[in-house]
């Protein structure tokens, strides 16, 4: 992708398609240890995002801010404020830059993670999206090369991180009510984080 506004917008279009495609999978994961709405919540949110992409603003930061406010006002649940905060912080971190660089991607991902942790107070190992986003940030920092390569490293790590949530006992979010019964299932938010990053990485390559 180009790393200007247009590139970000087209990446977001693929994100929307991926969320749509995996809606049922996310619903199923959330039924097992939550309340079954995660896929529907994200679908509702990203469908709303799609309807706004025709007027995305001037900078990558502006697009991400639009995504943030749209998610906050349409997703609801835990994922709405958390993803909303992630996109909002990423937007702030980018400042006025007209084009994304590998470095700015790393900064944005770090800011997103910090935002999620600030809002949700989850640590690694609590079986949440933080378990996907944390290794993603670390992998991005360690990676070298293009925006595509950085995002791809992040996506791979998030994917592994989401798988690693399977044996965990949840300590945050709705799954924590299940206690030991939450073990043996992948966290839906970790999975969606991995899917989102993969969609960005694919769009960038």
């Amino acid at each position, binding site marked *: 992708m180009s790393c200007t506004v247009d590139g970000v917008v087209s990446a977001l279009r693929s994100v929307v398609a991926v969320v749509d495609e995996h809606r049922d999978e996310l*619903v199923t994961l959330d039924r097992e240890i939550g*309340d079954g*709405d995660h896929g529907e919540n994200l679908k509702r949110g990203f469908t709303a995002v799609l309807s706004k992409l025709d007027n995305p603003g001037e900078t990558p930061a502006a697009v991400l801010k639009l995504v943030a406010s749209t998610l906050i006002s349409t997703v*609801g*649940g835990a994922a709405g*404020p958390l993803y909303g905060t992630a996109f909002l912080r990423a937007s702030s971190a980018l400042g006025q830059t007209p084009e994304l660089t590998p470095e700015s991607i790393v900064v944005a991902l770090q800011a997103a993670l910090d935002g999620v942790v600030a809002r949700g107070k989850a640590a690694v190992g609590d079986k949440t999206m933080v378990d996907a986003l944390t290794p993603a940030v670390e992998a991005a920092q360690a990676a070298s090369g293009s925006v595509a390569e950085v995002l791809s490293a992040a996506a791979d790590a998030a994917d592994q991180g989401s798988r690693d949530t399977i044996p965990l006992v949840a300590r945050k979010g709705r799954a*924590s*009510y299940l*206690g030991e019964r939450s073990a043996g299932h992948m966290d839906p938010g970790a999975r969606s984080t991995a899917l989102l990053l993969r969609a960005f990485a694919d769009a960038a390559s």
Partner: protein
Amino acid sequence: MKKIINDPSTVVGESLRGLAAAHADILKVRTEPAVVYRADAPVPDKVAVISGGGSGHEPMHGGFVGLGMLDAACPGAVFTSPTPDQVQAAIEHVHGGAGVLLIVKNYTGDVLNFETAAEFAEMSDVAVRTVVIDDDVAVKDSLYTAGRRGVGGTVLLEKILGGAAEGGYRLDELEALARRVISSVRSMGVALTACTVPHVGEPSFVLGDDEIEIGIGIHGEPGRRRVPHMPADQLVRALLEPILDDLPFGSGDRVVLFTNSMGGTPLVELYLAHGIAERLLEERGIVVERRLVGPYVTSLEMQGMSLTVLKVDDEMLRWWDAPVRTAALRWGA
């Protein structure tokens, strides 16, 4: 999935239209974002009491909007907490100059969304306080969980606070009363069957013909343990004992007893269970001062019930007894 709906994605909006049509004398509904508010809002110089949460728990919360209870309710998608802009719209719509009290059930999503809205409201100079109710003893309250869930106790809290707000309590006083109620109320529930969320289309869990799930929440989430079905005497005891042991409640305590249907349990069974609960409390020397029996905090068509016990004093009873005029609870008005 057989439901009386047109399309899973329009259920909440269409249902709110029906609610508005049915109770135009009590409440109004606005959409985009969705808010149910008192027909006579804003009430000048009264603290506005606002709550909200996922839909599918009807009559909570929309059915509790009206004189002596809530000024507004923010209905999310089915089993999904509302968004901050719904809460902001509610605050703007109903605050009458004496501040706003937000009643939030303790779920990560609800807490985060209301928190965001409260931040915005503070920026626009409306005094906002938030109280979080977490009365479900089925969930272990520890550093290693999201804490206890808010369930049946919410109704008692909303009634008492709504009464006190109508009676002239200032924001500080109301918040203090809320914290006392929250620390004095405990609940526990059981599911005999699961429920089906419209956009999911399948039951949220599957129970065998002779299995029940003890310690369920109100979102179709699985509970703490699955056990063989048992006679009502035993079942009511299995719900009541953890409640009584938790606070704990003891001989001489005065309580409000709330026997709640999860939606699909018929009244004939619910009253039967209520009678058992009354007897068990009496055996322990606990004095039931008031009671509420019915489907008030539901999980769609789920069969099952919950018990809520609130330890009361004269102040709480006074506002419990105060007039209320809502779609679902009404007395003295």
